[in-house]
């Protein structure tokens, strides 16, 4: 599920909170043009310094960053697959798939391509996609672009609000992203005005758009206001529904990153996540721990990362969860273990997970197999074993073809292309040809 989004490193694989796919080069590429770090995948300032005024200076229009041609090709292929979904009857599925490509483009610093794709989305998700484009522009000093996309997205939100067939959470998904950007640009009043009218059920849904907006509040916290913020988060976590708890944990992990240098503050923040295991949903709790571990690694604190990882593993081992659920965390935990220096153990963990997958494959829903397997390929790529990653990507591609219908096939091949692009995996000619064959062959039955 979409949690902890950031413009530079937001992995959209299933239920992935941890920046599993944020290999160092992905992060490095993503931060090349950042005027200031804002996301958990970026270097934290030594001293918390949210929202320096000069971060909002006009730097001119954003441009697409240099990128390996094959990655750009993969983005195009992903979009081609998404756009192949027919509007009738799959307008919603099509738009959803298109939006994922837009987000990937932004993650890979391709804002003009993202905008091109965003403007082709045919339903309310064009609004959320444009809002993401606006946020990217704001973060990168393209204030004119941000204003333009904010206005466009806000107009779509207004139209949705007028449409009796629409639902409020769609409107809310847009305006909360708008609020996030307005807050970033310093217009808190506008942000609060937008946030004030949202349907509370949207906020209480497990909705990534809302979480993204709420999470931005972490960027506004200073050392002086941290205790007050934590007290407020305690209230949210203690009193709120699970949806709000997601948002609160999101804020906590961001704060954990920003205040990592201060051990006392760091531990104080981490407790908000670590001591709520019985109350937080299992996926949120596990993901939260792993996000903390990843942040610890980023700050070169491998011992702390291993402790957090052990805590997550213990939780998974003693909790009653479906086997798919457990397996979904295997590659993510392997990456953290790898980044903490346990290379052999990480590989062993992956292979053991793959054995489980092979043994139980027939019991997994057909349309979920590629989604379960894809993070394993990503993990090997992050760990530098491109050969093994390639083998697994081939398997992922074919698993995505198991279902006879093009709707799930289109989703799977599109997401596989995005995965490869994000993780700097260059498919060989044979695999690339197979991908093109699949994309070109999408059609009836949908």
């Amino acid at each position: 599920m979409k949690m902890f989004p950031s413009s530079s490193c937001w992995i959209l694989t299933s239920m992935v909170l941890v920046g599993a796919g944020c290999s160092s080069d992905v992060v490095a590429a993503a931060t090349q043009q950042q005027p200031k770090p804002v996301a958990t995948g970026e270097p934290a300032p030594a001293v918390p310094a949210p929202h320096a005024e000069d971060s909002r200076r006009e730097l001119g229009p954003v441009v697409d960053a240099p990128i390996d041609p094959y990655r750009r090709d993969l983005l195009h292929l992903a979009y081609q697959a998404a756009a192949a979904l027919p509007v009738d009857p799959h307008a919603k599925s099509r738009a959803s798939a298109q939006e994922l490509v837009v987000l990937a483009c932004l993650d890979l610093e391709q804002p003009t391509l993202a905008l091109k794709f965003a403007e082709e989305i045919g339903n309310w998700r064009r609004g959320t996609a444009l809002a993401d484009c606006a946020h990217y522009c704001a973060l990168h000093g393209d204030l004119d672009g941000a204003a333009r996309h904010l206005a466009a997205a806000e107009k779509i939100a207004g139209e949705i609000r007028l449409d009796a067939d629409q639902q409020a959470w769609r409107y809310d998904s847009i305006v909360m992203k708008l609020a996030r950007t307005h807050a970033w640009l310093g217009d808190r009043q506008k942000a609060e005005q937008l946030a004030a009218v949202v349907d509370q059920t949207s906020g209480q849904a497990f909705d990534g758009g809302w979480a993204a907006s709420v999470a931005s509040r972490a960027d506004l916290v200073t050392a002086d206001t941290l205790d007050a913020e934590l007290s407020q988060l305690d209230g949210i976590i203690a009193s709120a529904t699970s949806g709000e708890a997601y948002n609160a944990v999101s804020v906590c992990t961001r704060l954990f990153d920003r205040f990592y240098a201060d051990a006392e503050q760091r531990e104080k923040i981490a407790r908000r996540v670590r001591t709520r295991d019985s109350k937080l949903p299992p996926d949120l709790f596990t993901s939260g721990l792993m996000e903390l571990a990843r942040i610890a690694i980023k700050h070169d604190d491998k011992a702390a990362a291993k402790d957090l990882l052990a805590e997550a593993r213990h939780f998974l081992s003693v909790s009653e969860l479906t086997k798919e659920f457990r397996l979904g965390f295997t590659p993510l935990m392997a990456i953290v273990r790898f980044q903490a220096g346990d290379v052999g153990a990480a590989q062993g963990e992956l292979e053991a997970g793959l054995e489980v997958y092979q043994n139980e494959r027939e019991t997994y829903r057909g349309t979920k197999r590629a989604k379960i397997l894809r993070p394993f390929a990503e993990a090997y790529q992050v760990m530098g074993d491109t050969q093994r990653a390639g083998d697994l990507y081939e398997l992922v591609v074919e698993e995505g073809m198991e279902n006879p219908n093009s709707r799930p096939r289109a989703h799977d091949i599109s997401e596989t292309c995005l995965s490869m692009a994000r993780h700097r995996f260059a498919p060989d000619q044979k695999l690339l040809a197979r991908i093109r064959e699949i994309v070109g062959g999408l059609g009836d039955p949908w």
Partner: protein
Amino acid sequence: MQLPNYLQGTLIALGLTGAVSAQIVPTVVVAADIATSTVWGPPNIYELDGEIHVLDGATLTILPGTVIASDTTVSFPTPGSGPASLTIDRGAMIVAKGTQTNPIVFTSKSDGTTPATTIEPISGAQTTSRNLNGAYRPAATAEWGGVSIHGEGYVSYCNAGVTNTPVPSSSNEAPMEGLLRPNIRNYGGGKVVTAFGGGFTSDGQGDNDDSGAFEFVSIRYNGFVAASTVELNGLGLGGVGRETDLSHIESLNSLDDGIEIWGGAARLKYVEIWACGDDSIDFDQGWRGALQHGLVVQGYTTPSSQGSGLSDNCFEMDGAEQCFWQPVSSAVIANVTVVGMPDAIGTGDPVNGNNGGDHAMAFRDNARVQFHRMVYLDIGDRLVSNDNTDGERCNNASSGIPGAGGGYGCSGTLSWAATWTTATGTLSTVSPFPGFPESTPTEAYITASNMDFGANGKLNEVKDSLIYTGNSSVAYLVEATARGVLALPADDGVNNNNGANVVTGTLPIAAISRDPAVTIGGLTGSPSSVDVARVNFLDPRPATADARRSYEWEAGNTFLDGSRYRGGFGQDRLWTTGWTATAQYGLIATDTANYDLGGCNNPGSRGCTELSITGSWAASTLVTLTARNLAPVPSVGLPGGACVFVIGFAPASPTALPLFGGVLNVLPDIQEGAFGIAGEATVSFVYGRGLPPATIFTQVVAFDDAAFGSPLPFPTGASFSNVVMSRIP
């Protein structure tokens, strides 16, 4: 004959191509699961010959006018294995989008069918469909199974000893009741998936999951009860997410519930439940959704006990399978007209203990539901009932409380009484999770959807509703009174912040008539017989001032529109026309000249502007257009309001109407403006220009200084009404 591709495929798959002739289109027998995406469409009739599943990854598209007629004699998966039914598995989709005049009908093979030509009013296209023209068969039920849709929304179901946890988890899932195929979690290889919920690796969907669209669908004469809690309902929604489009759904003569919802966040508009044999609308396992615009009419089909042919509760609401599991059901229901079935109507014996239908609203296991702008009449038993629990328990180690009791107050959750006085967001001080030392109590009872109509909202509430006392039992208002339902502050006449209910002895709807009461004896339990009478005609339009106008309206941005009346219908508006069985059978008032398409947005300072049209558009016939609930426009000195009736042809789709951001091709000679008097404006004329037969659309643009402006694509101060589609004969 050249068959459409989809039909060819289907017939070939079924080995029926030899039966196709140039003149006769056979019934398409569907005797296998649907693994590849398929389109069903008229003029064919489709017969479900078993428990048919649309499998993970496949999409079933059903075109307007399609009839699916089935029975209980099936061959798939094995002969005699259960009634015919259709299930949309988790990961599959259904796109069933009928229209106001050309619905999709799921019914029995015993229902009369004849070929018919339908003119699609939106596009003007002419289609040959198999419309149903049989007469109403009031005793008919359980002639086939039902329809189930599964999604990946969160569900609080305790699968004892398996994997579910008491907190929301994408690992939690539940089985759909009433389905007989056993492989609940046997996912692979094109097998059925009778589980729902979970959302594991669901692309970030979860409660936002999309199972497709189900619109303008009539489900008739269905039902199946294999055993207690093994029942097929008219429509079952399991873990269905809010991206699924659900509107204009009818259930008629279902043996069990009309609609039952388990978990998820599905939201529904325009729902009619007529004479179901159990609960009209039932939900459990943490449904966090909303329903607006509805009609519930209790009745009976077979001479059986409540739940097996005799209507039980109008709304039966369970929080979760175990009271403290999460998410707990927390929903908002607004603008529903609820017609119960008291014992011995017309015999002057409403208090003999035989209650006919049961309660209007039965609450169980920590359910939290807010009812607003409702109309209740002829309720057999109580308006509000604390049923406490359905008796289901979680004997699951992960609950920390093996075999713990259920009901309100269970394991430290709020008491029944407290849920009616506790503001949304207020916490308990008692931990419901003693098995977890680090836990806090709050997840047990805080609603997952605090759609609380402002700061005064309570976890459970009935507000701004009309409660008719005629034909009621002595127990009718007892619990409601105890819960303060009748003691809410009075309306101040100005602000949208009051919710006083109105108790009245005046019938609030235009008309209701019933068959003579009959005695149904031999019932299980006590009483062993009831005297009940079916509704044989209903005009649900509001007939009193209290019904025509509510104190409050939904002014915020929610799923609910800003309709400002009580009950399911606005004045002179009948959204049931054109697509329901009840309209077809003459059980409900209809207006085939003017179809209310609903909608209402940018409601301004007084809620939605309402448009109604009466009269025919035939030459030399008086047509009256009325706009109601106009706001004062003090900026131009018009205290009674002002509006423009915009009438014209719409392009090919209703989404092109101004309401939906499109353009209406205005008929210049009949565009009318009007000043209102006391918030109401009327224009009457004889439209004799002699246009050829056509479909036109009308919408009111009302001036309202308080209507929000930017970023709307309309001038500041414009509020838009519902749309009415009319036919020029």
